[in-house]
């Protein structure tokens, strides 16, 4: 197990390195215009552009450019030329909001998704199952940028039941924190609930047909035990992988759209602002931060998966 974890750590570093390379390529190599000009953004003056050129080493070779950029990122020197604020500080400020949003939504979608999927599977073919399956298909088709505005318009503007945006820190006012997050949580969760319940349902139906379930019944285990310890346990494995991927992505600030719609000032919001202003350094910073989280969570997921499925741990290809 330890060797497995070590191998994953090495893999993590490799992926992070590749990501940083890709980011470098995207921002400094592929585009067709002078890089310093682009980084300087809207308020570019010739002096600014010149100083950027020197700072970032655009007259040097590509590898040196890459090294310089990495140094900037890791030593916190990366700043937005638009707002003159250091990127990493801005990111840090946005983390509590983004975490609140992501973790809350993730817990909701995981619990409800698994619950509905379980109900669907044990009632397979019955009206409840068909209803839930239909709802799931609709759910996975409702994009955040439709559901968000609709919910805000109906619940916040018209009915005035919930606030229509903004973020209140947990330490300031727990109740406000909660009410401000309910709509965004739900907006994010709806899509995944539908998806996860379908995956779990399919996974459970597969498991229920397996021979070892028949063995378990033949041993005289109670139906409840057969369902939980044998069927569910094996069916949850793909869910864990998916959850890890989705959660990593959400926390990585891809809740950008939701934060924008609801005005939640997290990392995603910060990135969206930078996008509107065509301000590139913050995007670089947020992308790398996002990559780090996704890679970290993926590695954790792999470890969890190995723990759950011994065949993987001991080197066998899980079927």
């Amino acid at each position, binding site marked *: 197990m330890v060797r497995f974890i070590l191998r994953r750590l090495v893999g993590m570093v490799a992926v992070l390195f590749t990501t940083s390379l890709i980011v470098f390529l995207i921002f400094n190599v592929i585009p067709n215009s002078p890089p310093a000009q682009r980084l300087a953004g809207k308020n570019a003056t010739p002096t600014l552009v010149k100083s950027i050129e020197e700072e970032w080493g655009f007259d040097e070779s590509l590898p040196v450019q890459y090294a310089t950029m990495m140094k900037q990122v890791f030593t916190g020197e990366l700043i937005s030329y638009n707002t003159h604020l250091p990127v990493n500080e801005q990111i840090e400020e946005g983390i509590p909001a983004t975490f609140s949003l992501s973790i809350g939504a993730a817990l909701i979608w995981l619990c409800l998704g698994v619950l509905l999927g379980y109900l669907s599977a044990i009632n397979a073919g019955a009206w409840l199952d068909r209803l839930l399956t239909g709802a799931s298909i609709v759910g996975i088709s409702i994009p955040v940028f439709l559901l968000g505005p*609709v919910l805000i*318009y109906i619940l916040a503007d018209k009915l005035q039941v919930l606030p229509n945006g903004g973020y209140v820190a947990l330490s300031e006012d727990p109740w406000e924190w909660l009410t401000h997050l309910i709509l965004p949580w739900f907006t994010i969760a709806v899509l995944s609930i539908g998806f996860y319940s379908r995956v779990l349902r399919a*996974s459970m139906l597969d498991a229920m047909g397996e021979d070892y379930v028949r063995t378990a019944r033949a041993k005289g285990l109670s139906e409840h035990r057969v369902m939980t310890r044998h069927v569910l346990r094996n069916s949850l494995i793909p869910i864990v992988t998916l959850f890890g991927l989705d959660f990593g*992505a959400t926390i990585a600030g891809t809740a950008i759209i939701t934060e924008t719609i609801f005005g939640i000032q997290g990392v995603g919001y910060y990135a969206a602002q930078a996008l509107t202003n065509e301000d590139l350094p913050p995007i670089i910073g947020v992308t790398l931060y996002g990559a780090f989280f996704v890679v970290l969570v993926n590695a954790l997921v792999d470890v969890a998966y190995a723990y759950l499925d011994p065949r993987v741990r001991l080197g066998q290809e899980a079927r």
Partner: protein
Amino acid sequence: MSADSAAATRGPWSLALRRFLRNRLAVAFLALFALIVVFVLAAPLWADQVAHTGPNTAHVLEKLSVNGQQRDVVTPQGEPIGPQWFEAGGRFFLGADSRLGRDEMVRLMYGGRISLLIGIVSGLITTLVAVILGLLAGFYKGWVDGLIARTMDVLWSLPVFLIGVAAGISMAVGGLKIGPLELHSGSIWAPILIISVFSIPYIGRAIRGEAMALSEKEFVEAAVAQGAGPPRLMFGEILPNLASTIVVFFALSVANNMLFEAGLSFLGAGVQPPNSSWGTMISSGVELLTTAPLLSIIPGAMIMLTVLSLNVVADGLRDALDPRAKVRLEAHAGMVEPEGAPV
């Protein structure tokens, strides 16, 4: 025995077609999708004959005569006129958008063309490349597979949407230059390229897995024994058996890519002005959510209906082509992350 011989004379494709046609829900949604396509194709017709305006023409200072009355297209306070339906002869059917006073209905139709175009073209590219890579990896295995699989793994591990956004804005600002390939900064091909590339790992992995499993089967061995070379094996033996998977995945990837594009465009990292898509329309519409909610909700609803139709049709296709579809296919089929854009 007569039932057997009748079934034997019908090929699997026509059997699948009949099964699909019996699925009334899937057929209904296929019709809906077709309607949407017709809708957006009719854009020039509507613009010329009914609305007498283009998608980017601003009418901010004009007045509209409605039922004998003169009304501002955009009020001095900046509020655009609401949906007129047919009151003004079809002009401003859905009202005016934002402060520029453009005809929302015309914009909806033209924007839809871009959204669908990007979705379908990138879906084609993704599917094509993924199939080739998957076939190569699954068939040759060895180092070919290692290379392809590792690359897909790395792409898989990245925050794809985030990097898509990064690439989108970078290209929006600076255009693209890789060797001979050049794109100017407002080109539609920028989002198409980005979306295509980043969606490849999803389908690629599934195809690779299936190709690998298929390449171990006896009919492939039999073909090898007959002296078949790699191209005939891959394209003649394995590919036809992947066909049903590919068809389903294509439908799903169009749906997924449309969501991806909408997400990118919403944030400004996708389709750039003067082009617009349903995603950009939602973005500008959200600003006026309290006064003119339809401006953001209708384009969003159009996306949803299109994606829903494709999802239902893909489901129906999967049931028709392989009634005992496996979990693998399902798990990748959703591939939509919480934001409505691929992870």
